[in-house]
């Protein structure tokens, strides 16, 4: 795993830690990010729906990055949590008429519960096997969703109402929905950051760097990995639930393994193990999909080509390269 996380050495070495575990450059980048999000809420320069999609994808990628960047395990099955979170949020808001926040939290709880089961099985192996096992388990979830009555099979759950926030604010306005999504994203982003910079996160890094040594120091490494996996899948569930409510639809696409591949690509392109990489990656990948959508299969071809280029020449990703050029851990 050491090679995969080379970019990360920069973060470990930056000594000055200020507010919330951010170093000064990170804090600056965070302020810029929040400012951009807020400014776009006030004067929408970009289409709000597009931005909401970016934010959902960014949260999903941050959650995924927690596993690959800080535990060093590549999950190829995160679509299971994202998609199931979406199904549960859509179903509860449509048929139980729960509050939007409750639906999204239920999506997160579903992700966490599923993460507990899948993670318990998958952490028995590491490296390539971990990737293959998560892929296979997620495929099982996909088949379950294909057959189960509540998902609506090929049709998915359609015409999901956005409902109200705390029973008061009507979310059918894109503007109000945008603020909810922005708040969820920022909360999730900060949570991931907090996890990484907690004592728990330090143990995760220790496991990534040298698992036998962490074991010999008395840490139950499997427990740490499992908890990290559950946190990651919970946030993926939240991201999926939010996306389902924004777009009013939950479909098989979100549980399909191509979505797992997409989150891998997003994180890889942005920079594995960087704080802001997943966000930048999400913006680029979503924009790419948006503008290439009219060309059909060329989206897949382009995504594949970006994968190949990233792996061959660009392993630190966009943010990782910028950080390396500026000698900063971003």
């Amino acid at each position, binding site marked *: 795993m050491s*090679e995969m996380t080379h970019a990360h050495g920069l973060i470990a070495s930056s000594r000055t830690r200020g507010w919330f575990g951010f170093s000064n450059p990170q804090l600056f980048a965070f302020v810029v990010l929040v400012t951009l999000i807020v400014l776009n809420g006030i004067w929408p320069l970009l289409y709000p729906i597009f931005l909401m999609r970016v934010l959902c994808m960014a949260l999903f990628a941050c959650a995924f990055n927690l596993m690959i960047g800080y535990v060093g395990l590549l999950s190829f099955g995160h679509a299971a949590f994202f998609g199931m979170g979406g199904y549960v949020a859509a179903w509860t808001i449509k048929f139980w008429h729960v509050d939007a926040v409750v639906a999204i939290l239920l999506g997160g709880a579903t992700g966490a519960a599923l993460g507990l089961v899948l993670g318990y099985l998958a952490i028995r192996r590491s490296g390539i096997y971990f990737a293959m096992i998560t892929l*296979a388990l997620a*495929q099982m979830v996909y088949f379950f969703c294909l057959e189960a009555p509540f998902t609506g099979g090929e049709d998915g759950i359609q015409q999901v109402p956005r409902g109200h926030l705390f029973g008061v604010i009507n979310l059918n306005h894109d503007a109000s929905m945008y603020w909810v999504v922005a708040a969820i994203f920022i909360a999730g982003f900060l949570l991931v950051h907090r996890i990484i910079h907690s004592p728990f996160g330090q143990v995760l890094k220790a496991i990534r760097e040298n698992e036998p040594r962490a074991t010999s120091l008395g840490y139950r490494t499997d427990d740490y990995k499992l908890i990290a996996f559950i946190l990651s899948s919970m946030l993926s569930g939240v991201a999926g639930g939010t996306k389902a409510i924004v777009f009013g639809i939950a479909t098989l696409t979100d549980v399909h393994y191509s979505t797992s591949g997409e989150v891998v690509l997003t994180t890889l392109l942005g920079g594995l193990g960087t704080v802001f990489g997943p966000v930048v990656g999400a913006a680029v990948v979503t924009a790419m999909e948006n503008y290439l959508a009219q060309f059909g299969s060329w989206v897949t071809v382009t995504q594949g*080509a970006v994968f190949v280029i990233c792996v061959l020449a660009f392993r630190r990703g966009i943010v990782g390269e910028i950080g390396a050029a500026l000698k900063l851990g971003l």
Partner: protein
Amino acid sequence: MIMIFGIPAPLLFGQLLLGLINGAFYAMLSLGLAVIFGMLNIINFAHGALFMMGAFAAWMLLQYCGIGYFPALIVAPLIIGAFGILLEKTLIRHMYKLDHLYGLLLTFGLSLVIEGLFRNYYGSSGLPYQIPHVLEGAANLGFMFLPVYRGWVVAAALVVCFATWAILEKTSLGATLRAATENAQLVQAFGVDVPRVITLTFGGGVALAAFAGVLAAPIYSVNPNMGDNFINTVFAVVVIGGMGSILGAILTGFGLGVIEGLTKVFWPQASATVVFVVMVIVLLTMPRGLFGKRA
């Protein structure tokens, strides 16, 4: 009508045969994956895409060059194997010094490119490929009708699998290969051109996938997603079998195909997931896989 466990015998044997056929493809694909992994330490995610390319090569050979099924069984794997060698020479070789996961990501990207391109030019609806005349029809075995082509697929797969096994285990070439897997530097010191051995191994594994693709062409419609449908199950097969043993890969492939076929008889809804359930059980009881080596 003969009944077995309350199931009409022809239905049971029919599903068993379907299972064996799927198992034949699992065996050939997981065998290729295991051989490539043994030598290159890379999980070839593009294996499904290359399998699909094999089927398309057969279709194109017939369509554009008038080359029929039996020559295609040889020619298509050669073409796709050469393509595999090209991939190894240009792209995959840069992965050897990196973490194994990068190989997985690179080949995943390649599979997206390949499948996307084929989907773009040939659509996803699928192209028909006729069963060759000699292999048409069905034989009456007394207890069931055996479509000749399906019997042929199982037989051909068995032959190819065991031929691969024999080459790897019983010839001097195989011995060199296995030695290079164990300790590449030492083998290189003995004057073996290890990079070339690696390239040829990858080509061989890819050719195996392409051969499976040609066999599959008349059964499944030739379409860009045909590899996609197999590859996830094949990964589960590889996890179950463990990648340490060639015979293990073959046995696990066929065995799981049969289990899947039987599940289709007794509980059709579960047939898509039964392989994954087996994987879960194996992971819980013997995490290294049925035939896996101890680390």
